[in-house]
């Protein structure tokens, strides 16, 4: 019989099994944080090292302002800080135009954008490198930011968002003689918060975590972003400085944790709809 009691037992078991999965999925991160807070350069191995073995902020001091890692973090902040607001604006404007306007090639636009979302981005790597080399954009912030502005996810997401949003207010404003610019800035944008949050937080994740393009488009150490700097730092020396490396990794993870805590719903929605590939 399928009594309520049996069901509760089943649910309890589900809870225990999930706890094991949660532990597995979070343990590597806890380990990262633990090593970053440790002393010296050896990796803590035995359980006793986890709790004992000493805590310190030495590794964080080593990667603080003025260090190479500090510079990488600054670069990541600049690139993300400029790219994401621009992404949000471009996506809102283009998404709105596609949803509302009678654009002849609308189908073509959407088709191209969708195709771009799934095809391997690595295909554009070599031409972008050659183009940026020719334009003198290698090793510049502009070169690190511009490729992110071509991301079609936000445009597609916002086009769909505006299609499901009633145009009544905008039409009323138009009959009142508002200019299209005023309508966009003062009516459309303020009503786009939930959609733009999805675009913004997913844009943040893809920009902050981006690796292949920043790797290829920077040649000098001082222009590396945090992921690129970390990956190359791990290979530069014969013996790896695990403490500093995982302190840098923790530094790179902290903003992601914060974004996740604040915008989990938006992140899930974005990922389910094809961003973050």
């Amino acid at each position: 019989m399928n009594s309520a009691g049996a069901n509760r037992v089943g649910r309890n078991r589900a809870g225990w099994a999930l706890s094991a999965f949660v532990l597995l999925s979070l343990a590597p991160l806890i380990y990262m944080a633990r090593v970053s807070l440790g002393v010296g350069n050896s990796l803590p191995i035995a359980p006793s090292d986890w709790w004992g073995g000493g805590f310190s902020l030495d590794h964080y001091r080593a990667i603080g302002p003025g260090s190479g890692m500090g510079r990488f973090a600054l670069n990541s902040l600049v690139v993300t800080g400029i790219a994401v607001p621009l992404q949000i604006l471009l996506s809102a404007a283009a998404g709105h135009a596609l949803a509302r306007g009678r654009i002849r090639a609308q189908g073509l636009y959407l088709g191209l954008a969708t195709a771009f979302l799934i095809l391997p981005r690595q295909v554009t790597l070599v031409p972008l490198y050659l183009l940026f080399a020719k334009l003198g954009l290698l090793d510049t912030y502009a070169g690190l930011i511009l490729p992110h502005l071509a991301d079609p996810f936000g445009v597609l997401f916002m086009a769909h968002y505006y299609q499901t949003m009633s145009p009544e207010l905008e039409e009323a404003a138009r009959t009142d003689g508002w200019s299209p610019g005023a309508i966009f800035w003062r009516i459309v944008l303020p009503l786009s918060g939930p959609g733009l949050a999805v675009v913004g937080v997913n844009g943040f994740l893809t920009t902050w975590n981006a690796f292949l393009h920043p790797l290829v488009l920077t040649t000098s150490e001082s222009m590396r972003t945090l992921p690129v700097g970390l990956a190359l730092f791990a290979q530069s020396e014969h013996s790896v400085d695990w403490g500093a490396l995982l302190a840098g990794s923790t530094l790179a993870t902290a903003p992601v944790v914060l974004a996740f805590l604040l915008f989990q719903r938006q992140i899930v929605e974005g990922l389910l709809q094809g961003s973050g590939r």
Partner: protein
Amino acid sequence: MRSRSFLGLLPWSLCFAVFGLVPLLAALLLSFYFMNPLRPDLTHWVGAANYARALGSPAFWHALRTTAIFVVGTLPVTLLLAYIVAALLGRLRRGEAFFRAAIFFPATLSMVVIALIFKSLYAEQGLLNGWLEALGSPPVHWLQDPRLALPSIMAMDVWASVGYYAILILAGRKTLPVEQLEAARLEGMRTLEIERRIILPHVKPVLLFVVLLNTVRSFQIFIEVFVLTRGGPLDSTLTLVYHLYERAFYHFEMGYACAIAYLLLLLVGAILLVQRRLVARAPGEIPRASAVTQAPVEAPAL
């Protein structure tokens, strides 16, 4: 009206054209050239020679094979674990939000960070070898042994992707009407029977989607290899994209690298075509971003 809409579309269109479409087409063109940026004077048209070279190159086939092993090895494990986690999450009555968040979180992490953590776990003096030592067994060279390097990367990839696919599958489960489940329960069906006869058929489109998405993603793996093994030891972890990267940026064979890129594009395109056949979309609406990937799920109400 038309010109005004055009204004809103213009900035993104420009960026998309210059940093998206043009490079895409330029790569196709370049794939028919010999091109070394250090010797621009030697650039010349070679026809399909780059493609012929790739298809005749042991390294290319080796990279393709490595990538295929990666896909075939990770996919079933990831799928099974993700399905189990989703099923367990679906059975929870309380605390689902916490568990879901904790399990999904790794999907938002930088792959570089994930790879660095695992590099420390796999290290000679790392945690895994420490445990082995405590059990009295000799240390294992996880990333230096040609037989173990690829499986070690695959294990990491499974760890990194289970949460993401579990949430996808969970979203698919949630679209099943509660009444249907209740009815089955009233009929006296047991939990496993409900799972097999009602839920599994219902989430089948999602599972198919997960299979194809995971395949397409696996064909593009690069960061894992770059951080952990650099394609080694003995090319045992040389994947397609890493091969492309090496050709382009160590050997400066830009034309050849573009040919590899287009072969990759063709492969991924073929996989997607198969998928398009298998999963149909409701006609007549603006495709969602997911429509390409044809996700048969809506974002769940969380």
